């Protein structure tokens, strides 16, 4: 399966600031997704990152808060904007080749002070 690199692996940020998380894959993939996992909770899909077009957001998530880029088939970024303590979570990217299983990156552990 593809090797997925996520950066940073963890960060501590001040409220009101923004952080951009990168997801790099070692091969071209069709689908890239961004998830949030709050401590001890399940995985919640934030959005599907579409190559060359605007991301598709799930209910409860908006572009102004979580802008996403996907300039090519191996790279995507998720920005968490104007952060508050409620944004403290693990953010994960996953990739798949359409009808193939999703594989996850190691995640970014984000704490907001």
């Amino acid at each position: 399966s593809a090797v997925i690199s996520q950066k940073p692996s963890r960060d501590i940020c001040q409220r009101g600031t923004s952080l951009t998380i990168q997801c790099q894959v070692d091969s071209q993939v069709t689908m890239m997704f961004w998830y949030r996992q709050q401590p001890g909770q399940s995985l919640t899909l934030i959005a599907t990152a579409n190559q060359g077009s605007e991301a598709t957001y799930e209910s409860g998530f908006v572009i102004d808060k979580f802008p996403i880029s996907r300039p090519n088939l191996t790279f995507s970024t998720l920005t968490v904007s104007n952060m508050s303590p409620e944004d403290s979570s693990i953010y994960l990217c996953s990739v798949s080749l359409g009808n193939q299983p999703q594989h996850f990156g190691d995640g970014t552990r984000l704490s907001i002070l």
Partner: protein
Amino acid sequence: QQPVQSPQAVILREGEDAVINCSSSKALYSVHWYRQKHGEAPVFLMILLKGGEQKGHDKISASFNEKKQQSSLYLTASQLSYSGTYFCGTEPGGSNYKLTFGKGTLLTVNP
């Protein structure tokens, strides 16, 4: 809509068996099973497509009952390495590749 997993938690002794269930109120195209160890990323175990198939991987197998929209994960002769949280992810009929995950089942295997 989030699938319902049961049980929420289970504790086993090494060598014992366990079954984890995943139910959906919606028609499904596929069910995906993952295991996540503490502090690590979820790891893919297996995928089941509609059609009621059953799959196996070492001593872990799963089934998908399309009529009931229910999948079960079977862990046989559990090993210490099986410990972790198991999530099912469901893909709705129509196959849009997006998964909705259940709340997870915490499996603890003790010596």
